[in-house]
């Protein structure tokens, strides 16, 4: 009896499962053709839109970004009483995971802050879940407002296959880049100037090591910081255009080039010479920059997002500079914008959403971000800043003026966000040779670019 019942249950379950196969997952949403808005159709008069509730998902939870955005939202609602902004704010990790579900659920927010990467914004675009902003860019003059580099990291072809060009799918508020933080007091002690070339930088590392200092404070237990460190060396040794192609996952470059080999070998040499913190693979990212802020370590290769935290530790001893340049003398720096704000295809009030995007990226907004200690994405020259924030502003201006930004390397392919960090660790603990390291990346790159 029980056996029979069990069997009939299995049959029932199997039948149910078979019945389900009639429809494919994701079939509910009409993917493929995102609505386009021509410039001529755009309605810029928000007041005439009637009562509108705009749901906005962002990840600006850190105080430096949260405050300006809160103020901007309040001002927007004051200016347009017919609009209510419903803000949902989450940490980067949480937002990244939840946006995916929310945006394809049939009840998507109007505006989402989407990670630029191929696995995020790229796949949203290819599934037709985001609106192209080209029409709005024309009306609001965003192409003049944002530099070409800045627009590139939010641009995809309509099928989501090509990254770095095509239509604009988001606008950012802030800039960010991976440069070199340094301890001014220690450089003085060692008698070295902030190094401008790779040669000088390596000499500085050797001097620091000899003096018993930690030349580069580094912790890679979290896996991703290693990608920034590799990218930092790569920026000094590999032609900028090649890095851009690799980072955007576009055909035409190769990981196994001799320049990339130099980059990988250089990184291994630095490990051999003890230029990094002892046991760096067992040390977390946070403890490593916290050690630097406490005065351990001469250099720290990391992003502009650490400004406030490092400054509270080191005060006036904190310095920031762009990566030194290699033999070619060409400046290259891993960097991008903060996460761009995008409009979903399901938004019922895309014109209001676009007006909102224009508002939060206005010059007034940039001033607010600067005042809060952040790095606005443009209009830096109008801001009154001094000290280390000024150094950071100068560096960003130089980098964008020279179009020197190179993309984060783990954006390239869907797999590279877990492949690259693991491979860099293997390179740095020498379980993979530079050749094996590059071959693993080349295999992924080649299979992706086809």
């Amino acid at each position, binding site marked *: 009896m029980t056996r029979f019942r069990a069997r009939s249950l299995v049959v029932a379950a199997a039948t149910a499962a078979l019945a389900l196969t009639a429809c494919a997952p994701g079939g509910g949403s009409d993917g493929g053709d995102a609505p386009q808005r021509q410039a001529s159709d755009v309605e810029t008069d928000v007041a005439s839109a009637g009562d509108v509730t705009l749901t906005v998902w962002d990840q600006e939870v850190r105080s430096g970004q949260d405050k300006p955005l809160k103020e901007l939202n309040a001002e927007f609602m004051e200016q347009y009483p017919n609009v209510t902004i419903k803000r949902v704010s989450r940490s980067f990790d949480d937002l990244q995971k939840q946006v995916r579900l929310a945006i394809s659920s049939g009840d998507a927010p109007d505006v989402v802050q989407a990670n630029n990467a191929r696995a995020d914004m790229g796949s949203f675009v290819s*599934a037709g879940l985001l609106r192209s902003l080209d029409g709005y860019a024309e009306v609001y003059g965003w192409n003049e407002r944002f530099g070409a580099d800045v627009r590139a990291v939010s641009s995809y072809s309509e099928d989501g296959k090509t990254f770095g060009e095509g239509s604009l799918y988001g606008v950012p508020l802030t800039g960010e880049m991976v440069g070199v933080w340094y301890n001014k007091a220690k450089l003085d002690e060692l008698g070295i100037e902030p190094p401008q070339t790779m040669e000088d930088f390596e000499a500085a590392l050797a001097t620091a090591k000899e003096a018993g200092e930690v030349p580069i404070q580094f912790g890679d237990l979290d896996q991703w910081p290693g990608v920034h460190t590799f990218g930092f060396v790569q920026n000094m040794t590999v032609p900028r255009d090649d890095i851009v192609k690799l980072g955007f996952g576009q055909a035409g470059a190769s990981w196994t080039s001799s320049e990339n080999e130099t980059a990988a070998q250089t990184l291994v040499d630095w490990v051999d010479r003890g230029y990094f913190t002892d046991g760096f693979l067992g040390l977390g990212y946070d403890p490593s920059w916290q050690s630097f802020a406490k005065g351990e370590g001469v250099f720290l290769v990391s992003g502009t997002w650490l400004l406030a935290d490092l400054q509270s530790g080191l005060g006036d001893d904190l310095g920031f500079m762009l990566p030194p340049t290699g033999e070619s003398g060409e400046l290259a720096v891993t960097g991008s914008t903060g996460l761009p704000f995008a409009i979903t295809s399901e938004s019922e009030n895309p014109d209001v959403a676009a007006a909102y995007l224009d508002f939060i990226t206005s010059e007034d907004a940039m001033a607010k971000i600067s005042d809060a200690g952040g790095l606005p994405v443009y209009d830096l020259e109008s801001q009154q800043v001094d000290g280390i924030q000024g150094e950071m502003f100068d560096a960003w201006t130089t980098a964008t003026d020279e179009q020197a930004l190179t993309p984060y390397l783990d954006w390239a392919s869907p797999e590279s966000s877990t492949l690259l960090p693991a491979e860099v660790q293997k390179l740095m603990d020498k379980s993979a040779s530079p050749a094996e390291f590059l071959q693993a990346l080349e295999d992924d790159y080649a299979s992706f670019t086809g």
Partner: protein
Amino acid sequence: MSAGRGTATRGAPGEPRAVAYLYLAPALLVWALFMAWPLIRAVWLSFYEWDGLSVGTWVGLDNYVAVFTDPELREPFGHALVLLFFFSVLPILFGLVLASITARADVRGAGFFRTVIFLPQVVAMVVVAIAWRQIYEPSGPLNDGLRALGLDGLTHAWLGEQATALAAVGLVGTWVGTGLCMVLFLAGLSKVPRELYEAAALDGAGALRQLWHVGLPALRGEIAVAITLTVVAALRTFDLVYVMTTGGPGTATRVPAYEVWRWSLNEGRVGYGVTIALVLTALILLVTVVVNQVAERGER
């Protein structure tokens, strides 16, 4: 069959009546909604190549073929076997020893020690993971302690070296699991009449022999439960690995559950990730059934 009296709806004595299902219904509904339905959905998804966003493509059994033939997946499953030792074998051994010490001997403050050993069990795994990350740091308490003892040669970047990372994660599992096993065994041992031990002692059996001949046979059921729980914990480990090492250094601590997360949420291959999850589920189910079969057979 027999009963002439009473209503026709009533069946033979002992046969469940229809109304019984009514009592089961709420639980059954919850189970169906949150267990059965997701499982059916998962099986359905495993037949598709799907990125989680656009329309999926039916690929039949391709995902299963891929899971069983992918050489890259052998490593994580191998790591799961290693974790079995740390999550299951060690805690059961330690649990046995601790339980037999604290159950019988009049240890001072036994209650306190029991609580301390059980404590990790009630702390969230993420918290446990973060705490141990700090303990294992190159200049963390563990290495400091070793240096203080003059054992400088034994210091390691525990989570950062391929040779030590998996064992370091595993030992945290041992630390967590031991308390659970001990409490289970304590409960089992409390059923054993003291006289049995006294008789064994009179016959000249030492502590070890007493444990072997008196304690262990009484604990058969509890050991089966302990094996089941710890094996499941070992095979589905995710939080510890994710927080402590992200699968690194390199791929040295990647486990099946990490691969499920990686493929379905990170690489945009939901169908493949779900298939790994289903294979893992089947494996866990198989192990539990075998453990319980063996335990029951021994009972007779």
